[in-house]
């Protein structure tokens, strides 16, 4: 059962909310919600994370998290500090993966090359 201080993400357009124990649950929620509405999702209450450099790139966010392979949901939560939506973060990750700057050691986790 989710606690009252569990991370929360929501859709600003239709106010659907998701309380998540696992940050990647927010990624899955975003994909399902976006697929049927076209709406984006924002972190309403992100999990506690290390401080990130301001206005950096998603690659810096992955590096700053310090995990050998960071969960996409954690990356999206970190990027929310810059005002990024979950969709914007996933798009940025996609772009950086296609340039070879990030890779995916396992499903929905990314690492700096």
């Amino acid at each position, binding site marked *: 059962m989710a606690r009252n201080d569990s991370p929360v993400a929501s859709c600003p357009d*239709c106010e*659907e909310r*998701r309380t998540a124990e696992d940050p990647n649950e927010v990624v899955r*929620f975003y*994909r*399902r*919600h*976006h*697929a*049927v*509405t*076209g709406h984006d999702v924002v972190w309403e209450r992100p999990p506690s994370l290390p401080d990130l450099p301001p206005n950096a790139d998603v690659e810096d966010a992955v590096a700053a998290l310090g995990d050998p392979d960071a969960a996409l949901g954690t990356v999206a939560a970190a990027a929310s500090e810059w005002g990024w939506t979950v969709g914007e973060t996933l798009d940025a990750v996609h772009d950086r993966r296609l340039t070879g700057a990030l890779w995916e050691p396992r499903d929905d986790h990314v690492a700096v090359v």
Partner: protein
Amino acid sequence: MTRWNDGAEEVSAVSPDITDETNALPARYFTDPDVWEMEKEKIFSRYWVYAGHENCIPETGDYFTRTVGDKQVVVARDEDGDVRAFYNVCAHRGSKMVEDTPMTDPGNMGRIQCPYHLWTYDLDGDLRSTPRSFEEASLNPDLDDADVSGLDPDENGLMEVRTDDIGPLVFLNFADDPPLTLAEQAGKLKTRLESLPLSEYEHARRYVSEVECNWKTFGGNYSECDHCQANHQDWIRGIQLDESELEVNDYHWVLHYTHEEDVEDELRIHDEHEAQFHYFWPNFTVNMYGTADGYGTYIVDPIDEGRFQLIADYYFAESDLSEDEEEFVRTSRQLQEEDFELCERQYEGLRSGALGQGQLGPNEHTLHRFHRLAQEAYDA
């Protein structure tokens, strides 16, 4: 006698006779992941399921995607103005072709193109073109260009999924040889809906909620209103449940509600002086309101055995809503939230494993029909 999971394991198939003790679906059919795997084939790949509303794709090349279980289709308007559906899978090496595109924000394309190797299909699914590298053998020293016969457009097109419609409502059937036509599955519902001017109304709102319970839990809750008195107290004030009626058909059932104060004729899309809530097996509802000139649909879309999405669409004369219509949608949303809480609460109980098989009351014959259809599908 209620059948608890007390070690006796006394559960049975849903009895056709509602007065029997074993008149409900055993609890494990709501909670077992293997049952959801079975339902993808025995229910969602066998019966007609709702795809979307054709008013949302009026122009040639307009399209949206729809995912049912593990299968995704592209629903598109072709050059002849017909709505067709194809697996969102390229005939080359099976790549997903177009991105997820909701009915509420449709895309438009001249042709369907796979981004992987640019195989391109006409809107009727025929293979239109492949890159030059598929027409010559320049990189393969074992072959001459003359050895390459080319690809027959008809034989190498997209895999089409059977579609049919009721008014503007488009349905899909994934079976090679469906056991029923849409007309057979819909029965009187088809005639009833086709008599209404559904095409004249525009899509106005879509709300999508994720609920932590099995899709059948919500389907069952939708199918009866015995819970309404205790749980929808704002809404129930305007309803005369004494004069409500439950109508059971082969694959759909209707809950008719009469409003205490009759409403103006111009405030009603249909002539009946009542609201009509239709549940169409397996996971679609059509909601004809008694107090608004519009209608709604629900797709009760399973995510897995323990979660579903409720996709609630609202249709009104114009997509820009009046204040009253906005208020109507808010009230509808409130009812959904109340029902979600009830269903999640029920599901928490079901998931505990204590109950082997519940029991339905004699007036829960709509729900009995629902459970019987599930049982028949599992046995098929």
